[in-house]
């Protein structure tokens, strides 16, 4: 039954060119109203008044009661003075992500959201409506009407909760009209109690005798008053019953007798009448109605493909004109009335038992050739032809649905039900994609190997081989394998030029993803130059901010810039990445994590803990690869030291993580790049807060990032200096020296770390030798090197050199306001600057304590004993803190509550005039209190 008249693609071209989602576009228009429609002023007025006065209007009645037409007619003839959005809900909408995407599209189509509010494709976590919808609606000056037809398909309570939430948080700018067979799961009692709802229910929708009479007149039937009363009584004013009766009676020679028979009979109305009407149709029409009942929407050429005739266009047109069974949709499409389609399917099964699977298969093939993949797949599955579904999905440009930044697409979810026994390379590819999307690299690779064994070099297999190459690249990114990634990227790039792109997609995702994944592996393997080139290529393939895949390469570019020392450009790129991710509601996903981490890093260098925390909190927990408790997540005060210890824990303790959003494309494994970067940023933050143990634990947890066995040289280059610094801070300078590679350091960061460890170990000569004569590199590193040199100079008593180096450090840090290095520098700097306030005179950007002039009331004289002596308990606490015990450990050891220990720590800080526990320990040591 394939290869029927009129190539589907050609037939479709007559329709509006399919956009991103042609099937969706068809559900966003207000359906047309047939000529036989009877306007009922009592209902139209109630609807109009309801929308004017109440946020929620519920049109609630059985199938075929005339609910949809009532709302259509109202919108078409006396529309409200506000924009109106329409969405015919379908089964796939019964999940928050799809539902909110479709509602967003409906609002956009109605022009109900400001342009700046992008079209999001992914819902906010926990079934909430995407934030931009509430915000966008809240910005409006007048309300917008949203009609959700066939809302009975929504049974997911999360969607209903989200709608309720949106109604309550959009500043009254939403008028919701729900058209449903069932009561929706919204808390209707509350709306009723608050007089916020208009309900038009079955009893209201029932036709009165006058209305029945008008309806019959439209169908060319003139019945007497008593006859109308009889018919209205027998059908209980049910619109579908009246319409079917009119259609059946119109073909009956004696209308009056037909009514008498109908009245006397006891049959169920729709069932009986539909069979009657169906039997009076010409054979061709009957056949078409039965066969097309399996379709959600009917294209004349598709109907021809199902019937094997060529007259579907004429028949559908006639049926639509007579308002019998089908209504026209946008373009050449039609649809059957859902009630009639349901009954027709029963008749189809009864009359042609073996036919439905065949019809589904024929429909699937037609839709697939027409490029309507989502619909094609649904029918292939209905025909139980998983092999075809798998081949079309994996052998097409659609498999990136699994890895789209906006979450798996509609059809990806379909394959959840793919039978485990299905064999073949395409089925294996789909299994590989699912495994890799879940971060399971081992399983993904195993499936890929099995798929590869079944693929040939034939041209027919090119799309599947392209899919395989794309998946190989994803796997290579997870394992951090540069050779694998390069090879996969080459293969994919070659194949994608031979495989036609999916014309139905608004954005071509594949090239962007290829370059991005390749760049990530390049960066991981220590080639920032190649990474940068690939990222620029990715961005070039994704022109315009509305491309859904652009934010990830932007975030990675920000990282490359940052590590290259270009703080300003890095910040701009990262902000742009997050702005675009926000458009796609993807800020909380793994792919946006890099941009958040870059901004957290920059904030750390600028000494802005609140900003560090706010970004670190947005990095999904699964990506952190380690504990994120305490200072980062606790939202503790800025003197995070005391508080940070509360969340102190060892590596792998994941209980303290915040409720990160579900992560796209990450799972047990996750992107090693993100894991390492996350660990380094968090460790540095812990260090800044005086918690070297935590820093070390965080770094240790990134030792085996995700599926990558070992950190790359790149990762080690990031981790080692921070680990060394943490060891120095923990009083283990010797261990720090041992940690770092001997000989000439490969990076200025390593050189700095080596020098610092040597310096802390008391070997000033070795420290000086480790540092380059003229430091070069990122400004933050250069600043730190200059500061260390200055500290050495000051320690040697060479005040002039120290002052000179300090001036250079300040000048280096100034353009990017890098306060971090100065905050980390330790007490010598504060003391030095107090003696030389002239050095900081021009540096208003420095934090207060470092800028304080030699004032009449000086800060605490460095080594003056505390005014108030420490209590015995406080000394005990401090001794334990000096042994690097956490707050909890101190509490356990002293048999005190954690809060009591915190109180002691606060009073210790107060008495010693310090603000952090490490500082307190240092000061106590100098004062010989320990």
């Amino acid at each position: 039954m394939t290869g029927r008249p009129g190539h589907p693609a050609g037939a479709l071209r007559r329709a509006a060119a399919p956009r991103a989602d042609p099937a969706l576009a068809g559900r966003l228009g207000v359906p047309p109203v047939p000529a036989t429609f009877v306007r009922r002023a009592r209902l139209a007025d109630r609807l109009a008044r309801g929308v004017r006065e109440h946020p929620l209007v519920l049109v609630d009645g059985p199938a075929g009661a005339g609910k949809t037409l009532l709302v259509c007619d109202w919108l078409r003839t006396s529309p409200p003075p506000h924009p109106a959005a329409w969405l015919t809900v379908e089964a796939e909408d019964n999940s928050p992500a799809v539902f909110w995407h479709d509602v967003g599209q409906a609002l956009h189509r109605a022009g109900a959201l400001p342009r700046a509010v992008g079209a999001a494709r992914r819902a906010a976590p926990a079934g909430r409506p995407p934030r931009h919808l509430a915000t966008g609606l809240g910005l409006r000056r007048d309300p917008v009407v949203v009609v959700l037809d066939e809302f009975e398909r929504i049974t997911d309570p999360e969607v209903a909760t989200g709608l309720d939430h949106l109604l309550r948080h959009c500043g009254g700018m939403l008028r919701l009209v729900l058209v449903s067979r069932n009561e929706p799961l919204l808390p209707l009692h509350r709306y009723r109690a608050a007089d916020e709802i208009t309900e038009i229910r079955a009893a209201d929708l029932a036709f009165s005798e006058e209305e029945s009479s008008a309806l019959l007149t439209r169908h060319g039937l003139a019945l007497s008053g008593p006859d109308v009363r009889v018919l209205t009584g027998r059908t209980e004013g049910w619109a579908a019953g009246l319409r079917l009766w009119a259609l059946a009676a119109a073909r009956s020679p004696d209308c009056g007798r037909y009514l008498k028979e109908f009245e006397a009979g006891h049959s169920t109305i729709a069932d009986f009448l539909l069979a009657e009407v169906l039997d009076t149709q010409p054979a061709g029409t009957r056949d078409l109605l039965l066969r097309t009942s399996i379709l959600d929407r009917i294209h004349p050429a598709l109907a021809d493909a199902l019937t094997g005739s060529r007259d579907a266009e004429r028949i559908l047109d006639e049926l639509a004109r007579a308002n019998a069974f089908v209504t026209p949709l946008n373009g050449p499409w039609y649809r059957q009335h859902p009630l009639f389609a349901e009954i027709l399917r029963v008749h189809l099964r009864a009359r042609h038992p073996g036919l439905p699977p065949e019809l589904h298969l024929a429909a699937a093939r037609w839709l697939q050739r027409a490029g309507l993949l989502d619909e094609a797949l649904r029918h292939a599955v209905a025909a139980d032809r998983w092999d075809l579904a798998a081949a079309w999905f994996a052998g097409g440009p659609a498999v990136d649905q699994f890895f789209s930044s906006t979450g798996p697409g509609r059809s990806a979810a379909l394959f959840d039900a793919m039978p485990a026994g299905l064999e073949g390379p395409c089925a294996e590819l789909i299994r590989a994609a699912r495994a890799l999307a879940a971060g399971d690299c081992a399983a993904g690779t195993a499936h890929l190997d099995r798929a590869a064994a079944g693929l040939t070099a034939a041209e027919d297999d090119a799309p599947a081989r392209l899919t395989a190459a794309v998946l190989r690249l994803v796997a290579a990114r997870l394992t951090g394998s540069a050779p694998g990634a390069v090879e996969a990227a080459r293969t994919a790039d070659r194949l994608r030029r031979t495989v036609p792109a999916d014309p139905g997609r608004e954005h071509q995702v594949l090239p962007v993803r290829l370059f991005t994944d390749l760049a990530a592996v390049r960066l991981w393997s220590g080639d920032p130059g190649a990474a940068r080139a690939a990222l620029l290529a990715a961005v070039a393939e994704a022109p315009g901010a509305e491309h859904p895949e652009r934010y990830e390469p932007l975030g990675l570019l920000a990282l490359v810039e940052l590590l290259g020392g270009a703080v300003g450009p890095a910040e701009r790129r990262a902000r742009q990445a997050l702005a675009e991710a926000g458009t796609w509601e993807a800020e909380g996903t793994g792919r946006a994590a890099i941009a958040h981490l870059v901004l957290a890093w920059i904030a750390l260098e600028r000494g802005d803990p609140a900003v560090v925390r706010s970004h670190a909190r947005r990095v999904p927990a699964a990506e952190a690869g380690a504990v994120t408790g305490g200072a980062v997540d606790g939202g503790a005060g800025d003197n995070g030291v005391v508080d940070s210890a509360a969340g102190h824990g060892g590596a792998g303790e994941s209980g303290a993580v915040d409720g990160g959003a579900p992560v796209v494309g990450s799972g047990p494994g996750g992107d090693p790049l993100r894991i390492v970067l996350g660990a380094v940023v968090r460790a540095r933050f812990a260090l800044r807060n005086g918690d070297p143990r935590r820093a070390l634990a965080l770094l240790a947890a990134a030792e085996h990032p995700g599926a990558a066995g070992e950190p790359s040289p790149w990762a080690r280059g990031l981790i080692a200096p921070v680990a060394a610094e943490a060891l120095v801070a923990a009083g283990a300078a010797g261990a720090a020296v041992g940690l770092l590679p001997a000989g000439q350091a490969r990076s200025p960061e390593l050189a700095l770390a080596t020098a610092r460890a040597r310096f802390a170990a008391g070997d000033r000569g070795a420290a000086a030798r480790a540092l380059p004569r003229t430091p070069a590199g990122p400004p933050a590193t250069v600043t730190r090197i200059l500061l260390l040199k200055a500290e050495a100079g000051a320690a040697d008593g060479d005040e002039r050199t120290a002052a000179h180096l300090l001036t250079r450090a300040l000048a280096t840090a100034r353009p990017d306001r890098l306060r971090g290095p100065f905050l980390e520098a330790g007490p010598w700097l504060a003391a030095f600057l107090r003696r030389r306030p002239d050095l900081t005179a021009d540096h208003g950007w420095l934090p207060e304590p470092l800028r304080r002039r030699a004032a009449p009331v000086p800060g605490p004289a460095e080594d003056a004993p505390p005014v108030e002596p420490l209590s015995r308990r406080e000394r005990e606490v401090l001794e334990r803190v000096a042994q690097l015990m956490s707050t909890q450990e101190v509490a356990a050891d002293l048999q005190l509550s954690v809060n009591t220990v915190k109180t002691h720590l606060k009073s210790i800080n107060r008495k010693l005039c310090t603000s952090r526990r490490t500082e307190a320990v240092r000061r106590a040591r100098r004062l010989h209190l320990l």
Partner: protein
Amino acid sequence: MRYEIRVAGAMSDTMLDEGFPELESFVIASQTVLVGPIVDEAHLYGLLARFQLLGLRVTELRQLPE
């Protein structure tokens, strides 16, 4: 669980055989009575949805003693 479901009107044989093959049925005084085993609640609600989809009015629903 066995249930008895009554629907207003006499349902056609086609509808009974193809729409509700798992239930036995008989017609009395302008009612169709359907009786059969209901596997679980999901089945029950699915069944009710099917009646609704097909434009049938359920007038009575009760669980039968085992």
